């Protein structure tokens, strides 16, 4: 099932994703939308590529194409060495163990007929991972890792807040210890503190297990923190793709420049507030 073209590591690289000239046009009546316009990029193992850009620019379509959900008109999407659009259903299913996804919509992506515990355990059952007890332990570990506790395992997604659903989806995606996780606006529905906790966890997992992330976000500060490389999409095209320092220090494309310029300012700077926080915390602890 391997298709090694374009993924040979003769140059010493080990790409987990190779998007090779992806093209896709949607037709709305007589009108056409070029959702993917010659999209090419690679994501090396153990690194994060952030995909940023205006809504409608094609970020989610790119993600769906990489995941094998959306077939492109032309071009190839190679994940872990396999062309995802050239696999049998069975092969694709096997690849899905290595490639997980967390979507933008917190409510829609969880099966409402199952409990949270069953949702997280589902993938482990499907791929026969571990004994029943080991699975339960893993599920408990995962739910705590996303900042919830075991009391949530018996609940139904309907009984959760948006951010809690989002965290369950993240726990589920990590259950199988995948090699690649595609996160499409996966943390925007979380308060900034829970978000920080999850981002820290994702970074730690990357350090420990060499996970690869395709990280879609519209928050450039989050993209900068998470990603090694950043690709900017505009109307189905990647208009700029560079490492994060270069992108912020020296954005070349006018669209990227505009995007950086439009970041809202006026909030207290994180660092200043943190210093203040430590000071007040000390005062409070002294008071009792």
């Amino acid at each position, binding site marked *: 099932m391997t298709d090694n073209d374009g993924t040979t590591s003769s140059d010493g690289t080990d790409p987990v994703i190779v998007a090779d000239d992806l093209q896709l046009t*949607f037709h*709305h*009546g*007589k*009108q056409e939308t070029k959702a993917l316009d010659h999209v090419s990029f690679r994501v090396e193992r153990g690194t994060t590529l952030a995909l*940023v850009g*205006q*809504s*409608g620019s094609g970020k*989610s379509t790119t993600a769906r194409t990489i995941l094998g959900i959306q077939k492109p008109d032309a071009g190839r999407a190679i994940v872990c060495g396999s062309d995802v659009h050239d696999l049998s259903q069975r092969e694709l299913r096997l690849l899905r163990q290595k490639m997980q996804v967390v979507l*933008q*919509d*917190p*409510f*829609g992506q969880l099966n409402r007929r199952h409990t949270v515990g069953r949702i997280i355990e589902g993938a482990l059952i499907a791929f026969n991972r571990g004994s029943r007890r080991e699975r339960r332990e893993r599920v408990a570990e995962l739910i705590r890792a996303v900042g919830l506790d075991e009391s949530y395992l018996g609940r139904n997604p309907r*009984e*959760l*807040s*948006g*951010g*809690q659903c989002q*965290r369950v989806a993240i726990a589920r995606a990590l259950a199988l210890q995948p090699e690649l996780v595609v996160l499409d*606006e996966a943390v*925007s*529905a*979380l*308060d*900034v*503190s829970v*978000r*920080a*906790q999850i*981002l*820290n966890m994702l*970074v730690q997992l990357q350090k420990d297990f060499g996970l690869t992330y395709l990280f879609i976000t*519209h*928050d*450039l*500060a*989050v993209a*900068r*923190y998470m990603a090694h490389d950043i690709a900017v999409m505009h109307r189905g095209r990647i208009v700029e793709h560079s490492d994060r320092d270069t992108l912020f220090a020296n954005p070349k494309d006018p669209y990227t420049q*505009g*995007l950086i310029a*439009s*970041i*809202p*300012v006026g*909030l*207290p*700077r*994180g*660092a200043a*507030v*943190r210093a*203040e*926080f430590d000071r*007040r*915390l000390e005062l*409070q602890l002294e008071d009792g």
Partner: protein
Amino acid sequence: MTESAVTVENLVVTVPGATGPVRVVDDISFEIAAGNVLGIVGESGSGKSLTALSLMRLHRSPVRIDNGFIRVAGTDVRSLAERELDAFRGNTIAMIYQNPMSALNPVLTIGNQLVEAIRIHNKVSRRVARNQATDMLAEVGIDRPADRLDSYPFELSGGMLQRVVIAMAMSCNPRVLIADEATTALDVTTQARVLDLLRGLIEQHDMAVLFITHDLAVASEFCDDIQVMYSGRIVERGTAREVFEDPRHPYTLGLLGSLCTLDMELDRPIPTMPRDIAELSRLAPAIDHAALEVQELR
């Protein structure tokens, strides 16, 4: 003083728990004047959405309002009969949800849904309603609005769907608008346009708005007043300036401290809440900046 468009007093919302009802919204009170935007920020799971749903009486069993008084545009919401609720929701108050798909029918085109929404409130022909729908889509910043009327929801990106939903909510000219993470999925430029649009609509229609968001930058720019929720309670309240420039409650400080900013240091963990935040919050009283000023004047 004119009556507030929204008045909430001692609201308690409960869900059943192992050892009796759990107060997921725990005795909160607030007001919103017409033409004003009240932002709610805070912990995921702290009761923001359940507070919003209370204003429309949209909870489904076993979630219930256990106590409190709610008045929206002169209507005592808790005393409304079931049969009065639809008209109340359709004409007085509208909500833009966290999940745009939940407000749209997946098997009908955008145009059909907008035309229906318009015709419920205005007796106009389909043709006129269709023209209005086109204008509304253009107003919320959708390209080629006339063509998009024939699109199905699944054909639009998340950001576009959010804008369609905003257009639908506005079609009934509500007095009170609730936006629950309505701009969460939008990129900064689109978001700015949508917020400008909302700002214009708020002024034009003198609407009161309850605006729930996790985006502190948006909250600070868009909201007149901010209240911070933690664990079912309002822990801090003030003007956007007061709360963000002079945060007093440990939870608010922790929240602002965990913010990702463009100048933050890389290659080290983002600071998060102190582990004992629950304990710290219990010790710290809820903070109302208006009350602080009174104290300071004395």
